[in-house]
């Protein structure tokens, strides 16, 4: 199982009410808010924790037809490190976060065999980004498996989960896609 989330930091800065206390109260516990306000990096800390929660949510919600918006049920730990933990109910989900000048990306995983990749979109149109994400995922899977990209297709199943097909055959590998603003990210688990 794999979950992946990316935040475009320029986009998030312009298109979000992140400066407000009410924003923090809706998303983060008291402990998480203490961390967010602890070191003068409020903006980065918010999106670091958000991407941890969202990537873990994608593992939990994978295949759920009815989405939930319950970020406070996902509790972030080890937030001072790139390697974190998100606890949901009795499940502990490890995460790895990478922070770049223009984006923050987190991968949440169950098994340690996975890869992730960040890419930049050619424009902000949702459909164009969708197509580009699928192409990027097919190319990454081709490289991973040493296959020709032409043999690979990415198709969403009827639960909305994208899956790999090689020459028409469904693969066991799992794919998680994320996009925000000008950035996309993918994570593949074997």
């Amino acid at each position, binding site marked *: 199982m794999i979950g992946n989330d990316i935040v475009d930091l320029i986009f998030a800065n312009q298109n*979000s009410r992140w400066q407000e206390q009410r924003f923090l109260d809706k998303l983060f516990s008291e402990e998480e808010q203490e961390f967010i306000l602890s070191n003068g990096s409020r903006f980065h800390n918010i999106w670091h924790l958000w991407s941890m929660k969202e990537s873990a949510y994608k593992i939990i919600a994978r295949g759920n037809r009815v989405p*939930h*918006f319950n970020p406070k049920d996902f509790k972030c730990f080890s937030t001072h490190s790139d390697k974190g933990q998100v606890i949901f109910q009795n499940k502990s989900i490890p995460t790895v976060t990478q922070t770049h000048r223009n984006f923050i990306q987190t991968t949440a995983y169950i098994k340690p065999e996975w890869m992730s990749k960040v890419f930049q979109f050619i424009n902000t149109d949702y459909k164009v980004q969708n197509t580009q994400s699928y192409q990027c995922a097919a190319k990454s899977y081709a490289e991973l498996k040493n296959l020709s990209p032409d043999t690979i297709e990415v198709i969403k199943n009827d639960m909305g989960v994208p899956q790999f097909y090689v020459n028409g055959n469904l693969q066991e590998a799992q794919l998680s896609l994320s996009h925000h603003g000008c950035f996309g990210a993918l994570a593949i688990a074997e």
Partner: protein
Amino acid sequence: MKKEELITKLKSIVKPYIQDEEAFNNLSEHTTFVGDLKINSANLVDVILDVEDEFDIRIENDEMERMLSVKAAMDIVSSKISA
């Protein structure tokens, strides 16, 4: 508040965040925020805060959890402003 008036207000609230124009133009009670309008999950909390401000209400966490469609938002807002 009339149903049509409520939908019109919700429509103007979600407008800055939508990524599917066609779904937005055809917005109805059955439209979902993420699935149909392609609102990024990072903006869902902004939608909630904008709804709170527009209608001068406070939305609790258990309500926020299910406020992912126009219908759900209408139900929650209606129950608060008529209370």
